């Protein structure tokens, strides 16, 4: 019943709108906040992952016998040690915790070594022998979408398609005074949070507890429980203070591997990524190719946009389908556009996985739609602020998906205030 929040704006005097200090601030300035890598439990083991160095291959066999002979090595786990389901993923369960059939990217986890010391780990990893048969790799969405391309996952390489159709964009283009078409490309980006992925797991009384650097402890719990084949009530995930995430710590990193290692070995286990490991194997921002056509009338009023977005999600879906869907919903920008045709493709390749990163596909499309707005303004000799104010959402406007915006529609205010601020600072002056 209690589904709706409150808009009681007069409430909360004194504390709402105040610059209260961070509740975790004192521990952080004193260095007493215990991040996952700062934690230790007596008898704790350390773990490290053996990862694929090839992007696409059939995995035939892993032989860890010589690694097990390295002094200090306690165990080497491979896919067959996983008691539950060996697939994780927030939207699509398509990523193995440890590869069981096919390698799909450089960095896929093949085996997990658990040992008493870093030295033992360092000696054990190269001692593991892996037999695989390399397959040709697919390194661009264009290649992946071409007819006859081998399927990286069973159902083909196009993971998802989002289509938004409103009015009749093609006819509107014919009526327009100005039509501008451009292709925009954006790069793959790393989150680069300062704290590399880290976690610690321990089993007590049939319950596994995992302290991890994470953005979503309850999702972690679900995945660890599935992978171990136990109830969620027997998994406790505690989010350790987390040194930044920006979307890059939404997916599973160390959680399932640590759960497995602690569950199997019966001892506490800690794993900390090196910077290089973090940068090579964490999900990235989707590189996108955006074909964008905008059309407006002689006053600069938008008549239509046609947009095609192709995002390279790499080897696993991660947050890719959500990113491309969101990119599609936001592709026409904060503007009223009567005729819209938008398509967004999320495509598998053998590149590193792209997932969530601050903005979820919208920074990519914003680069495109805002460049287009300036091109339209330039064609008509309009000021960039004027064309934006002329088109931006107002209360009552409908978005590309046909959603009516009723209240709290501040885009016009932000344009006015940004302009006023820029004038006040002298950024904008007599120039325009």
């Amino acid at each position: 019943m209690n589904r709706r929040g409150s808009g009681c704006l007069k409430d909360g005097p004194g504390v709402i709108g105040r610059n209260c200090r961070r509740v975790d601030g004192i521990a952080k300035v004193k260095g007493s906040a215990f991040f996952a890598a700062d934690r230790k439990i007596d008898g704790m083991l350390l773990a490290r992952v053996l990862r694929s160095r090839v992007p696409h291959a059939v995995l035939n066999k892993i032989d860890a016998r010589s690694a097990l002979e390295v002094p200090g090595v306690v165990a080497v786990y491979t896919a067959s040690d996983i008691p539950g389901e060996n697939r994780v993923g927030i939207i699509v369960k398509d990523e193995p915790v440890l590869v069981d059939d096919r390698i799909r990217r450089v960095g896929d986890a093949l085996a997990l070594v658990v040992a008493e010391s870093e030295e033992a780990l360092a000696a054990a990893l190269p001692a593991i022998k892996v037999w695989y048969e390399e397959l040709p790799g697919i390194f661009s969405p264009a290649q992946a979408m071409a007819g006859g391309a081998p399927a990286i996952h069973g159902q083909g390489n196009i993971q998802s398609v989002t289509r938004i159709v409103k009015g009749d964009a093609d006819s509107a283009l014919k009526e327009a005074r100005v039509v501008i078409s451009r292709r925009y490309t954006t790069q793959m980006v790393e989150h680069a949070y300062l704290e590399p992925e880290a976690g610690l797991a321990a089993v007590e009384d049939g319950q596994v507890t995992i302290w991890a650097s994470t953005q979503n402890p309850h999702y972690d719990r679900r995945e660890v429980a599935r992978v171990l084949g136990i109830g969620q009530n027997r998994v406790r995930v505690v989010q350790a203070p987390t040194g930044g995430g920006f979307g890059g710590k939404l997916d599973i990193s160390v959680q399932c591997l640590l759960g497995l290692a602690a569950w199997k070995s019966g001892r506490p286990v800690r794993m900390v990524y090196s910077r290089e490991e973090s940068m090579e194997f964490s999900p990235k921002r989707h590189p996108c190719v955006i074909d964008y056509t905008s059309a407006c009338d002689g006053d600069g009023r938008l008549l239509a946009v046609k947009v095609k977005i192709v995002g390279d999600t790499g080897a696993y879906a991660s947050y890719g389908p959500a990113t491309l869907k969101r990119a599609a919903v936001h592709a026409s920008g904060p503007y009223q556009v009567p005729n819209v045709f938008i398509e967004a493709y999320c495509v598998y390749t053998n590149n590193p996985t792209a997932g969530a990163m601050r903005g979820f596909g919208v920074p990519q499309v914003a680069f495109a739609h805002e460049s287009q707005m300036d091109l339209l303004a330039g064609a008509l000799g309009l000021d960039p602020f004027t064309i934006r104010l002329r088109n931006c959402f107002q209360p009552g406007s409908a978005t590309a998906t046909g959603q009516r915006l009723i209240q709290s529609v501040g885009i016009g205010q932000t344009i006015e205030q940004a302009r006023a601020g820029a004038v006040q600072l002298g950024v904008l002056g007599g120039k325009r």
Partner: protein
Amino acid sequence: MKPFRFTATINGRPVDLPVNPHRRLLDVIRDDLGLTGTKEGCGEGECGACTVLLNGRPVNACLVLAPEAAGCEITTIEGVAPEGGLHPIQEAFLEAGAVQCGYCTPGMILAAKALLDKDLSPTDQAIKTAVSGNLCRCTGYIKIIEAVRLAAAKLSGEGDAV
């Protein structure tokens, strides 16, 4: 390799322990001494999360081998605050909102301390330069720079009062 006796002063206290000579100062601080306020962000001298003061100079503890720090006076974040309180730089970081995830914070505070120990009225450029070896991915540095400016004011205010 045979351990050697690592003797130094850390946060005003003498330490004396056997240490493998190719161990990094960072590992001695974090693992052997349990002072985990000093963070590792890269292990390659690029991020400054591991910044400590060695005889008052900021260094990346991940690049210093234990023998190089022997006999030195070492300050880590745990040694910055007076008993039961906060150092004015720590106060300033809280007041200015210069802390978000906090992973860069210990290193930033020590880099700031090294600057302010020498110069209580630094220019913004001097502040930016002093923390230029310290990465922060959260704050955009603006509030960190503000905090150092604020700390300078607090510290010189205190200086006047004495």
